[in-house]
């Protein structure tokens, strides 16, 4: 291949960027073979990019000398795909390489650089993308950097995703290589910050070059500037390490290869969860009570219900009966199903139960609720519960399904733990945590026997639920689960 490039007789045609900013294209079809005569402007192949399938015309008159890649290969923009003998009459050419005849698997390894061969062999390595220009597989196009004193020239394209623009990333790279310091980084780039943040820094007299960035890609945020003014540890606990080492002006980039910390922007469900939990924990004085109960009879009932005709096709599990037990307890102690209206200085008693179920989903923690659960028969409740869970797992829970809850169950038992102190869903007065059901030694009818036992925890808002009310609710739930026939007697 190297001899080709120096020979003016053979002209090479490189994969062009046929879109705006594309990095690669797949060769769909060759319309010519080595030995074919071509003229300037003649279409020689069809390629497909992330945007379109297009035909490529050759810019030379001559005879096709070689095709460098077979059909189906994804080729980086800038790589030679075909060479043309522009003076075919001037003597015997080197043996035309039929490298890319459709049946050939790849260009001969002796001629193609290793990277190309590897790529040809693994076309499926390309990541599919929905939007944008596709994902580049290699960085063969990156220009080499000058050797900086103390820092050996990096292998071209070694750390994929390294930002030249980010001195922080460069510093990290230098550190990883065991050479130099931030000072050896390429030209002092301007610290990255948005204009309002620059203004803030200017107003506060902060030199942005001394501020540790915490934003994505090393961007300095408003908080970073504030932290630089008053480096109080409690104000910015996440940057404690950086304040401990003020002599290093530039610290690790937020996400760098091999970093000891990873920073994830707080947004979406996480942000909503955090706001809700902080809001709840610091407005409603929480009290949590615990009870451990023998649920052997409930487990038996679950087994019986599973084969019951009325419950066919429905999901029957302990959670269903625990939900039913909670509903019975609320029926006997309706004042717990209430909300504190701070603005109106009123307690709102709810005459309906929208039963929330905390669900861990791929999107994070969400609490959809079953509307009017108090009106539902057991099969209806089972159906609603099953639907709620599957909807949540698919990530399709609607905002409406998460609003207007009145009381919540959180099933931490599925993770194998015994119990916890749940935090109220904002706007509600009680939340029941369900622990794992375990076979344990238990005194049953005067004898120690292995029984199925679980611990329940109920947190309630002490502004409107007194210890007496909360205790009664929890005790009633426990009583139902111990003797599920109370579902009938108390209903």
């Amino acid at each position, binding site marked *: 291949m190297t001899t080709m490039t120096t020979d003016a007789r053979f002209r090479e045609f490189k994969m*062009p*960027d046929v879109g705006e900013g594309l990095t690669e294209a797949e060769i769909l079809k060759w319309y010519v073979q080595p030995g074919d005569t071509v003229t*300037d402007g003649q279409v020689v192949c069809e390629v497909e990019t992330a*945007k*379109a*399938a297009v035909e490529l015309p050759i810019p030379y008159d001559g005879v096709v000398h070689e095709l460098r890649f077979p059909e189906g290969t994804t080729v980086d923009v800038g790589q030679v795909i075909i060479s043309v003998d522009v003076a075919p009459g001037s003597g015997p050419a080197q043996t035309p390489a039929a490298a890319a005849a459709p049946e050939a698997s790849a260009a001969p390894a002796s001629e193609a650089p290793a990277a190309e061969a590897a790529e040809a062999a693994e076309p499926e390595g390309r990541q599919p993308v929905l939007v944008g220009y596709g994902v580049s597989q290699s960085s063969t196009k990156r220009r*080499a*950097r000058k050797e900086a004193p103390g820092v050996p020239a990096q292998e071209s394209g070694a750390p994929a995703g390294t930002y030249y623009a980010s001195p922080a990333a460069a510093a990290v790279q230098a550190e990883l290589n065991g050479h130099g310091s931030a000072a050896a980084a390429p*030209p002092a780039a301007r610290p990255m910050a948005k204009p309002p943040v620059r203004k803030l820094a200017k107003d506060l007299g902060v030199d942005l070059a001394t501020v540790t960035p915490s934003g994505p890609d090393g961007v300095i945020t408003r908080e970073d500037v504030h932290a630089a003014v008053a480096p109080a540890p409690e104000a910015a606990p996440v940057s404690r390490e950086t304040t401990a080492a003020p002599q290093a002006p530039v610290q690790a980039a937020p996400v760098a290869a091999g970093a000891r910390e990873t920073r994830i922007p707080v947004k979406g469900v996480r942000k909503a969860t955090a706001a809700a939990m902080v809001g709840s924990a610091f407005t409603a004085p929480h009290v949590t009570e615990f009870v451990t109960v023998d649920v052997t009879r409930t487990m038996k009932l679950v087994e019986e219900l599973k084969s019951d005709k009325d419950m066919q096709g429905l999901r029957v599990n302990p959670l269903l009966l625990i939900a039913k037990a909670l509903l019975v307890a609320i029926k006997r102690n309706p004042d717990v199903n209430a909300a504190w209206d701070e603005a109106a200085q009123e307690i709102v008693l709810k005459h309906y139960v929208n039963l929330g179920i905390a669900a861990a989903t791929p999107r994070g923690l969400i609490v959809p609720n079953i509307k009017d659960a108090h009106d539902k028969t057991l099969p209806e409740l089972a159906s609603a519960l099953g639907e709620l869970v599957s909807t949540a797992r698919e990530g399709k829970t609607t905002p409406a399904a998460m609003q207007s809850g009145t009381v919540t169950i959180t099933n931490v038992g599925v993770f194998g733990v015994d119990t916890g102190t749940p935090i109220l869903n904002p706007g509600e007065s009680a939340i029941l945590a369900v622990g794992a059901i375990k076979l344990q030694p238990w005194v049953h009818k005067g004898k120690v026997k292995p029984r199925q036992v679980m611990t329940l925890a109920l947190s309630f808002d002490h502004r409107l639920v007194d210890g007496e009310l909360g205790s009664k609710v929890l005790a009633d739930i426990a009583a139902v689960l111990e003797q599920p026939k109370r579902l009938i007697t108390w209903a």
Partner: protein
Amino acid sequence: MTVESTAARTPRRTSGGKRAGGKTATKAAKTAQAQAAEPELVQLLTPEGKRVEHPDYAIDLSADELRGLYKDMVLTRQFDAEAIALQRQGELGLWPSLLGQEAAQIGSGRATKDDDYVFPTYREHGVAWCRGVEPKNLLGMFRGVNNGGWDPNSNNFHLYTIVIGSQALHATGYAMGITKDGADSAVVAYFGDGASSQGDVMEGFNFAAVYNAPVVFFCQNNQWAISEGNEKQFRVPLFQRAQGFGFPGVRVDGNDVLAVLAVTRAALERARRGEGPMLIEAFTYRMGAHTTSDDPTKYRRDEEREAWEAKDPILRLRTYLLAEGLADEAFFSELEAESEAFGKKVREAVRSMEDPDMMAIFENVYADGSALVDEERAQFAAYQASFADGEGK
């Protein structure tokens, strides 16, 4: 014929004498009918190459002029094909093809006079040709080696406008200036069906109407706003929109170079006479992709393109020229040779274009310089210097 184009012919009559109520009612009914059916378009040369007459727009051209229009269209198509190929070879960053719109552009471009002013979109290669803009300059812009391409005032052809529809405002403002100067030239604002949904275009319409500005709004309705067809863009035929702003609108067969020339001439004459703006909807078809970054097979069917191929603007004029003995085979073969030579020249011109100095991008930001630009220039120079292979490539 619709009410609008009647108004175009005799604009003053409508505002003139009082009309009987019955007559107005009949007119309204006719308009409603015209809206229900596919609106009529002005046509002087059928797709089959037959010359037909139109009551409102007549044209009488010499054989030389007819052959000239044909040659313009052929060379423009050749130029366009070369540009697409050059883009595919990596020589241009992008190219918006005009394939199929040659008649709309050559017909309207040849209707302008030297002192008229043209505000194009980024697809007006045929109009640029008529205005005498050096073809190489269009390509230099899409290669990214010049800053916009040409001096707008040397050919009264404004810079290609990439922002959709903003040139309607520029054109209207220029036309208002012509009125203030007391000059008797006119302005053409080009835009497409997609741009007709832009606020800028409607603002231009309204200002032009209120100020009676001498501007012709020339809309090439090529049926596709990238991937959105007409039916997803508007409910009323485009040319009828003018009525709501208070000036006439007419739909012309955009693939009929004679009709486009006749209608645009009439509209420009009208504007020069001080009778205000007019909207021309040239009903045509974008035969190729929106730009070289687009793949039309993803959103439209081949049958549609085939139907429009039968209405090809060049083919119908060739048929007419041959049938009427206005051109012989020698003319066509000579033109073919000329076209090929022209294509070769275009290719060579592009391939030999020199890359501008990397640092030149900082030169035309502020006339008197700026501290921020100076800082950026120094930073960029340092960045370029950090590469092992020396200067920027």
